[in-house]
């Protein structure tokens, strides 16, 4: 049975209705001081450095580089790029302290030096990490332009063959199959467990959480060893893609549970309470309120777990076996994956094999990078945070609900809204006896904004 509230046939558009809500209060509005005649100066930028401060940095930097070069080039018995870098940095910091202390007190010197140290730590870290990735990509670019690298396997290619022969298709396929099996187990099990931890709770849930936390400490090689001894030695008696997928599952499951648990914990409690207050059952609250609210966070959790699982080498090393041929059956025969293929390639001393190894690593990095970017695009926002469009839609929805609940349309139709008996209105309007009961001829003109 559905209920529709009668709407006035000549009702204006919904937007115009909402302006009545502003008209409830007939008190004179807060007086805003007029900006006229007030001079507005040019906008000053905060957080800027004076010329003096900038020269301190530049001077210290130049001095540090010069000292290091002098020491390494002419005076000292020092050598090596890393040593030069260290000396230059130390000289830079020393000179900077000296320059700043010329004009400032000790507190400010400490502040400046701390800032410089923080920035250098960040620059060093980001430099090193970006360099690691770029180094791999550059060394891998030797093998990547060959199309056969992506379309062939290593079945007929020996270590001495040129890069125009052989490829890593079998490893790509192996990675995809293994991670799919792992995801098929991890996602339902992990998210349901996280829901169990958050929505049902109790003593057993606390126990589950403790165990899941403990398992995040499981070293990946031990997970591999477990699968090797429990599944390969006892059950299947051969290495297979399925065994590798099991090892990846054991590694990924705690990560996904933990990340989803955090995301679900962030779902605002009042959303749940509102749902329960409407008489909804627990299951419907989870399905219609909790999970949709946390959707982006859950997707992020799963994708980050996937990225971690794809890159795992050591459990796969023990369980999947190494092969050069394509194998699409996860239950029989060895099935290699990308990280293991990298490991296998670079064990060879041949330059071509090493180039293939870097090429495979570059593919792996690009895969992880792609997954990560997708995760950021989906899950950049926390649970309950809306985009602008969603926020506008939600606002319109709540206005509609308010109208429906207060039956504003009916009251407008009956002329009871907006109320006409407020003192300000009475004093301004001429006191005619018909005025209070007269229906408003037209709603107040809509604000153009």
């Amino acid at each position, binding site marked *: 049975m559905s209920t529709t509230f009668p709407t006035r046939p000549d009702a204006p558009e919904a937007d115009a209705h909402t302006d009545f809500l502003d008209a409830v209060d007939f008190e004179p509005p807060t007086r805003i001081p007029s900006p006229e005649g007030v001079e507005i100066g040019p906008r000053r930028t905060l957080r800027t450095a004076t010329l003096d401060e900038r020269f301190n940095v530049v001077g210290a930097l130049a001095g540090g580089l010069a000292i290091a070069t002098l020491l390494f080039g002419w005076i000292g018995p020092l050598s090596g790029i890393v040593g030069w870098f260290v000396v230059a940095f130390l000289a830079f910091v020393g000179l900077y302290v000296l320059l700043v202390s010329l004009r400032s007190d000790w507190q400010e010197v400490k502040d400046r030096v701390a800032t410089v140290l923080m920035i250098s730590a960040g620059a060093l870290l980001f430099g090193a990490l970006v360099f690691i990735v770029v180094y791999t990509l550059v060394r891998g670019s030797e093998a990547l332009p060959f199309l056969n690298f992506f379309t062939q396997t290593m079945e007929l290619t020996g270590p001495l063959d040129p890069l125009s022969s052989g490829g890593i298709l079998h490893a790509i396929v192996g990675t995809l199959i293994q991670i799919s099996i792992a995801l098929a187990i991890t996602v339902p099990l992990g998210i349901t467990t996280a829901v169990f931890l958050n929505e049902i709770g109790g003593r057993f849930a606390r126990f589950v959480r403790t165990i899941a936390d*403990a398992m995040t400490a499981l070293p990946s090689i031990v997970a591999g060893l477990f699968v090797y001894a429990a599944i390969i030695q006892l059950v299947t008696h051969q290495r297979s893609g399925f065994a590798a997928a099991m090892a990846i599952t054991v590694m990924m499951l705690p990560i996904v549970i933990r990340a989803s648990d955090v995301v679900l914990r962030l779902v605002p409690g009042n959303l749940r309470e509102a749902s329960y207050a409407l*008489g909804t059952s627990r299951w419907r609250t989870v399905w219609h309120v909790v999970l949709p609210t946390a959707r982006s966070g859950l997707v992020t959790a799963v994708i980050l777990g996937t990225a971690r699982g794809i890159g795992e080498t050591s459990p796969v090393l023990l369980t999947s076996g190494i092969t050069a041929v394509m194998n699409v059956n996860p239950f029989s025969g060895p099935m290699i994956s990308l990280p293991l293929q990298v490991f296998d390639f670079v064990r060879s001393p041949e330059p071509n094999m090493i180039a293939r190894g870097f090429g495979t*690593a570059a593919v792996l990095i690009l895969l992880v990078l792609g997954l990560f970017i997708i995760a950021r695009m989906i899950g950049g926002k926390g649970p309950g945070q809306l985009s602008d469009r969603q926020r506008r839609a939600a606002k319109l929805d709540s206005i509609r609900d308010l109208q429906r609940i207060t039956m504003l349309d009916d009251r407008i139709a009956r002329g009871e809204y907006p109320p006409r008996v407020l003192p300000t209105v009475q004093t301004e309007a001429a006191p005619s006896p018909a005025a209070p009961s007269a229906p408003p001829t037209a709603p107040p003109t809509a604000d153009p904004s």
Partner: protein
Amino acid sequence: MKQDDVFQTIDDVFLENERTDILTAVDDAGDDSSGDASGGARNGGGGDGAPGAGGAGGSNGGTPGDGGSGSPERRSLASRRSTSDTVFRTVAFTAGATTVGIMLAVGLFLSIRAGSALEVAGIGFLFTQEWSPETKQFGIAAVLFGTVTIAVIALIVGFPLALGTALLLSEVVRGRLRSFMVSLVDLMAAVPSIVFGLWGVFFLQENIIPVAEWISRYFAWIPFFAVTGEDGSTLTEASAFTSSAFIAGIVVGLMVVPTQASVMREAFSQAPVGEREGAFALGATRWGMIATVVLPFGRGGIIGGTMLGLGRALGETIAVYMIISPIFVINWEVLKTGTNSVSALIALRYGEASEFGLSALMAAGLVLFLITLVVNFTASSIVARSRSGAESL
């Protein structure tokens, strides 16, 4: 079920409630049956929607009738669980139990299989350096020492970087640059360890050797940094410095920095704005504010993040395995070629291991697992107990 259906059901319940109020006012003097009938009708009305709502309506319907019969009875507030809820609870409980089952299976299996090796080796397992299970002479003293050495070097390299980066991200950088750098740190935590291993073997190894030589030349009076041969003479050739714990430690250190930095940053960014502003208002410089407000507040995060990184560093396998050249004696000289780690030992020996050898490897893995377990639990309890709070972890 679509959202519209839910709303419709709620409307139904409202309207039905109004109608029942009128009915019960009449029924109060009458018999119970009509009250039950109205309850039944309401069940029918709500039945197409949420079962929970229907059930609740039914129990309400019975009450006015009870009041009419004049025997005030204490009503149980517990609501009857609907079918879907029961199914949901069962499924969720099963999932939790399955997870625990898998995890416990891993732990129990490891313990049971490790038991046979531990029985043979006894307490000597922890103090023997050799590893030959075939002759029953095996222990993890050397590999455990190597593991700890590598992890400690990783922390020494990683901690300043992580702390500086975390402070930079939470206190200095703002706006778009900050969110970009935060994403970059998170991304770096997801870079596969084999990539770090490749970099360590093919780039860092040859470029770090001059530094190692330099350290060993000028700091040889510190026992850790000396590099000596069998006869105690000082070694200077480059080949004595390859594949050392030092190089492995640097690579593992870079690997764990992102984890540490993101936990620390999380803790720092929760430092209360009021206290920050108070420090500034009292005339503190930015560093003064950091030293008096942010660092004390985030102490739990610093310790916890560092220990989480330590846990990862202890368990790291493939990068270490690629870099080190395995030995089975305790090597105090961290710059000298040759070290070992528990995980590298497992990766090295699992293939050729007999049944008993595998059991010995399991024992080694179990010890490693227990160590990382203790480290991780200590870390999370420190973080949870600190002011920066349980929310972040």
